[in-house]
Structure formats: C-alpha cells, structure tokens
C-alpha cells in the first residue's frame, strides 16, 4: 500500500490506483461526473480537479487520472480548485440547463447564475455510456464522434446502434439519466440509440426476459449450446 496525504489526512492507496478513488474511500468528497469504478479513468469532465504537491511543485490536475504516489500532498479545496470547479459546472450547466443533477451540483458549488447563452443539450459528454459499452459489455455500439464543439456520443452514422444488445448498462451508468429504456409488449427500446429489440419469452413462465439479439450474441461469444437461454434465469433456479 502506498501512503500519501489528502487535505492533511494520511491515506493509503494500492499500486496503480488513482487519487480520486482513494479520496472517496476515505470519505473525502470530490465532485466528479465522468468517473466510474467499472471503467478506466478518462478525465473529461474536469470537475475532480485537485492540487497535487510533488517534489515541492504544485500542479492542478484531475484526481481520477492522477496515479497514487508515495509522498504526494493532495489538496482538494484550495481557492484555485474551487474557482475552477465553479466555472466548469457553470459551463456544463450552460450546455445542459435542464439536467437536475447538474443544477443541484451547481447550487452546491455556489453558482448562482449562468452567464452564457443557454443551450438545450442534455448529454454532458462524460463518455461513460460509450466506455462501459466498450470496456465492460464489449458491444461497441456507441462512441464519441466529431470533434471540438461538435463532439457527440452517438451510434455510427447517427442511425440505429446496430451492435447494441439493449443490456441497459448505459442507462444505469449515465450520471444525468438521459438514456431511457422502455419496454412495451415484447419489445425493449433504448430510446436514445433508436434501438428496439424483440424480447425472448421464457419457455416455462412465458415472460419476456431479454432481447433475442442480446442472447444470440452471448451464445456466440461464450460458445453456449443453442437452447441455453430457452428458460429464463428465474425459472432455472
């Protein structure tokens, strides 16, 4: 375990870990949007900024990407850090004024007004949905496209996400809840990715339990027998 200090408090992190996860574990609040323990740190939102003092030099950096190192001193609430975080949340709020989480975070950080022309986007471009789809699920159905202020998280060719298996992982991981999943009859739709898939019914209880496409993909990937998913999980156990 590697010892270092956060806000004067001695902490420990394992090799290869990052400062943010150690802080959160130790009960130290650092606001963050694009960090999730199930995927690699990315450092897009810039909210988790902290000042790290190392070998006498201080620099401002994102805590989710800063590696745990012996002897560093991390400061999570300096004047500089708070000023930066306030501006960043204001910028995100100006982009997505309707997102409740962002509104709450902004209020908490003391942002009273938005001094920029408000847009009407909902996606905060944290990338979590795409990263989870790539790294955890392996469906590679959605990813960032375009560049700069035209950057978007979309299915390829802005159409239907053809590799999406409608597992719902992106729905769960989205911090601002803008990916909706709905089920109507025997169909499940991930609305944002325009993906509607027919559900398979359990041979025993008759309930729709998972999309055909998803189950076929699992069988293919894990080389499972043809009838493996004929009975739903509940009925099997």
């Amino acid at each position, binding site marked *: 375990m590697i010892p270092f200090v956060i806000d004067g408090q001695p902490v420990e992190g394992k090799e290869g870990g990052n400062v943010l996860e150690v802080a959160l574990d130790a009960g130290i609040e650092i606001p963050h949007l694009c960090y999730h323990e199930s995927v690699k740190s990315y450092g897009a939102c810039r909210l988790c900024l902290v000042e790290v003092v190392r070998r006498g030099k201080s620099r*401002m950096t*994102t805590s989710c990407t*800063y590696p745990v190192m012996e002897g560093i001193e991390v400061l999570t609430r300096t004047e500089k850090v708070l000023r930066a975080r306030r501006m960043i949340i204001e*910028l995100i709020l100006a982009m997505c004024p309707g997102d409740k989480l962002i509104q709450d975070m902004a209020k908490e950080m003391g942002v009273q007004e938005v001094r920029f022309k408000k847009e009407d986007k909902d996606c905060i471009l944290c990338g979590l949905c795409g990263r989870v789809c790539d790294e955890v699920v392996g469906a590679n159905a959605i990813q960032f496209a375009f560049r700069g202020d035209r950057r978007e998280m979309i299915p390829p060719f802005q159409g239907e996400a053809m590799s999406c298996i409608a597992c719902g992982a992106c729905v769960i991981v989205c911090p601002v809840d803008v990916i909706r999943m709905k089920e109507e009859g025997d169909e499940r739709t991930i609305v944002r990715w325009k993906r509607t898939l027919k559900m398979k019914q359990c041979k025993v209880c008759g309930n729709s339990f998972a999309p055909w496409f998803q189950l076929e993909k699992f069988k293919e990937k894990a080389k499972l027998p043809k009838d493996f998913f004929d009975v739903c999980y509940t009925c099997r156990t």
Partner: protein
Amino acid sequence: MRGVTEGKMKIRTKDDLEKIKEKGLESLYPKTTKVSVGMATCGLSTGAGKVYEVLQNGVEKAKLPILLGQTGCIGFCQKEPVVDILEPGKPRVFYQGVTPGRSMELVQKWLDNKVVEDLLLCKMEREDWIVEGTTKDYTVRHLPGGIDGTPHYHQVPFYSKQLKIALRNCGFINPDLMDEYIARGGYFGLYQALLGMKPEEIIEMVKRSGLRGRGGAGFYTGSKWESCRRSKDDRKFVLCNADEGDPGAYMDRSVLEGDPHSVIEGMIIGAYAIGAHEGFIYVRNEYPLAIQKLRIAIHQAEEAGLLGENILGSGFSFHVDLFRGGGAFVCGESTALMASIEGKVGEPRAKHIHTTESGLWDKPSNLNNVETWNNVPVIITRGADWYSKIGTEGSKGTKVFSVVGKVNNTGLVEVPMGITLREIVYDIGGGIPDGKKFKAVQTGGPSGGCIPESLIDLPVDFDRLTEAGSMMGSGGMIVMDESTCMVDVAKYFMSFLKDESCGKCTSCREGTKRMHEILNEISEGRGKLEHLDLLEELGWVTAEASLCQLGGTAPNPVLSTIRYFRKEYEEHIVNKRCPAKVCQALLHHRILSNVCTSCGRCAKVCPAEAITGKQRTKKEKGKPFKIDPKKCIHCGMCFEACKFKAIEVE
C-alpha cells in the same frame, strides 16, 4: 533523377562518402551552365511548374548547352518564381518573379553574356557551407553585361541579417539528389557521430549547445534525449513532428520540400544517442509535396545503407517510416500525435509519466520538431561551442520564421536568436506596404499572442516572448497594420481553436466555444464591458483546467490583445465602432454623392439589392446612387467595384 546512389552503391566508409561528395559537387557546380527553378510549394503556386516546362521545351528544341535543375524554396517567397543561373567563372544570378513568357529570355540573354536587368534579384560570388564551416568561392573571371548595380545576395535587405543553418540547403540543392546533399557536408555529421562518438558524448554535445525544441515548447533537447536514453527498454522510438499546424507557418514544409535528408540525418544521430532503432516522421496530410520528397529521400537513404541495418558499418540499425496525418491541429501535441500513430483519434493523454519514459505504444519515445532534428548534424560537425555562441543566453542558435501578413517582403527568414522584432519587420521584412502603420506582430500561432508597437524592440528569444504574453511557437510571424482589427484577430483564433479542440475536456471545449461566442457578440455590436472580465475568467479556466497545451495556451490570443489593445475592445463595446473597419456588422457603407458618377457598377454587384439610383447614359446625366442601410449586408463588393473611390466605409 541522376545520382550515383541510384540503387547500386551502399555507403560503408568515409571514402565512399567522399566519392559521392565528388559526384555531388560535379552535379552542383557543373562545367555546363545550369539553370535552376525553385519548385517548392510557394514556387509552384506562382507558376514555377510552367516556367520549368517552358525552359525544358525551349532548351530541347534549340539544343542549347544548358542543364536544367530544380531546387527548394530559397525563402523569399514574395519573389517567386525564382530562377538562378550558374556558369563556371561567372557570378551566380538569381531572378525573381519569372513568368513562363519571359523564362527563355533569361537563357537567351545569358548565352549572349547579358542579364535581364528588370528581373534580377541579386548576384552571388560565394556560398557559405555551414556544415563544414567553409566557403565555396565561385572564382569569378567574367561579368555578364548589365550586372553592375545588382546587389550581392548578402546585401539584399531580406537576406543580409539572416544566418541559415536550418535552411542551409534550401534553394541550393536539388532535394531529389542525395549526392548534392552529401556534397554540401550532408551525412558527414552522421559518420562522425556513429563512428567517432559514444551516445553519451553526443547527448553531452547537444546539451552544451543549448539547443531548445523548435516546435513551440522549447524544451532543452539534450535533456530530453538524456531522459529518454535513461529509460530502460529495448524498444524505443524517435519521432519527428512534421504536423506543422499553426496557420501562417510553413517553415517545416520548406525544409521537408527542399532538404529532407537533413531531417533524416538528424534523426539517425538522435536515435543512436538515445538507443532507438525505430522512428516515425508524422507529416501533415496537407503537405503532399513534402510527403513525396520525404518518401524519395528515405528510399535513397535506405538504398545507400544510411538507413537500415548496420549503418556505415557501425553496427547500429535504424528504420524510419512516414506517417500521414489526418488533418487535425491537435495532433501536433505530442501525446495526441502518438495516439494518432497508434490508430486512434488524436486525443491527448495525461503526462504525469513523460513520453520519454512511456510514449508511443507505452515505449520510451523522443519527439522533436523538424527544425530541431535538422539542426543536429550541424551541431555535430561544428561543435557545441560554435553553436552556443549564436543567439542569446537562454536561446541558442537560429530560428526560422515565416514572416507574412501586412509586410512587404513575405517569406521565410532564419535569424540568430536575439534579433529584435523591429529588425525582422523593417530591415528584413521591408516594412509595411501602402504606407500604412505597423500595429502588432502575432507570434506563436494560436498559442501565442500579439506584440504591439511599444514592444517592437523586444529581442526574439523564448523567454522574452513568453514574458510579453506571447511565445516563440513554431515560428509563424504575422505582421498586422492599422487595418487589422485586434478583436477580429482574437475571434479568428478562437474560431480556429474551438474547431480544432479534440473536445474531451469540458474546460477547453466549452471554454473556447464561449470565448468565441463573446468575441462574436463584441464584433457584432452586442458587447458589454463585463465581457472583458468574463473573457479573462474563461481564459483562466481554459488554461488551468485543461489537459493539454491546446487548451493550455488557447486564451493567449484573447488575453494578449485585451492586454495591449483594450481601448480597441472598448471602442467596439461602448461606441459600437470598429476603428480598423473590419468587423462587418459595425460598418456603414455610404456613397459620396458628390463623387459618384452614376455608372451603376455598384448596384450591379450588390448581392442584397441595396443600391438604387439612376444610371447615366450617353444622353442623360444620371442621379447619384444610394445605399439602403437597412438592406446592406456590408460585404464590401460595391467598394471593390467602384472605380471612382465614391464609396466611404466607416
């Protein structure tokens, strides 16, 4: 393509090099009269290709005793196409602005021992061979008629204060002929390094020379090499950043088009010093000619055994590959460049761990700019002491600048560090055209800032420029006069940066977007004084919170223009006026009724149908035309069309 090294001979010993040098010298200074046309992009875009064609046909048809050659850019791009004639016993003459129609005139007159006086740029009686530190004398015995009064190359104001190290061969060799590169000292530095020096000695020499990166960041090259050498890995990379993305900067392009071997030689030496056996040259996609020349040069070096296994019998092996960029300014950033080579998008990554420890494919990598690599062979042959005597305390050597914009002599100049901006703009650049007044010079591209008249005596030096709120950058130097609007310049750079941002970091993506938005408001008359404070705040967070230096330096153009030209911003905000008459929404176009001749041209070209009046005919006098301010879109077409200066712009 002539040349001894065409597919046959491998260079193994110094003797081999000397033999090729002899061949190269014959090629450079043949007994027959040689006519060379500058065929770099600047030349080609002004018609040099046609000039060459005309000469080729003319010489062939009349079976004239003339050899035709091609060279790269000699730097004075304003005067392209440039053609030079070299005959033993006579001074070399350089012609400027040569049109296809007049090219044969140059040759015919020369054969008659005369020059075409009105097209002469200068004459030359000796050449500096900077790699060897010697001079090649032309031993002039005859003077062609009409040449008196022509200045020497070294007397031409554009050239007199220059010291060409990086541009040493550009315009003097045919880049497709490796023999000519070797004839002027090329690859002798490599020989000296590989067979006469240990890697640590080379690094020590580069450190002592004081060479700093020429791409913009200005890191001490020797230290960078040292830290890469220290990294323990049996696979390392040396990389060349030829993704010259600063708009208005084309120094690297000229080196690659006119002297590609200089970069290759530098990289082999560096690779040897660092312990790398693989390299990449990342060239901007928008430079097709540079890519072509590099491919030829790499092939030639490979054929000659200067690239590949056991170079010069030293036991050291090194391969270099070309990588074409995809058109993204952010790929000039070192980690984004490496991501791009790996087949990903050019998104930078955190640099807590330096790329010299973990870079391309997580291997120790040393990235340097074209100009940096190109300086290395000369440092080897001339020594660190010689190099460190040039320049200032903190900035050794020379720097190539592209001097463009509102200046008389546009082109590439290479000057010792420490020269003042005034000397560059006025002595070398020839001052501002049309009698206008100097306003500012923008250095460092989109990462830099504008330096006003009050600081024009600033010495050009990494640290001095940074102190003034700008930076050296890659070397772009855009001269601006009273008809340039600084608000517009800031808006222009922000537009560029928000387009080129990779978009990952909220602070950069949203920061540049909002700064651009506010600058747009100001330029369209909707600015508020609070906007200036807001711009400074946005600038602060964009620089402090972003991951890479695109975001890190993005606010510079805005903050430096506010710092030095605040009054101009206030004029836009408070009085809704653009003093430089650039911001279209703030302009008022008016026809002066007492000057107007009622010719009607303006009304014909007006896209908004905003101009009405009675056109004069042979029989009737017309009535002066009027612009309807409500319909006018301020495009300025009427102003361009009017031959009587009857349109006033305010």
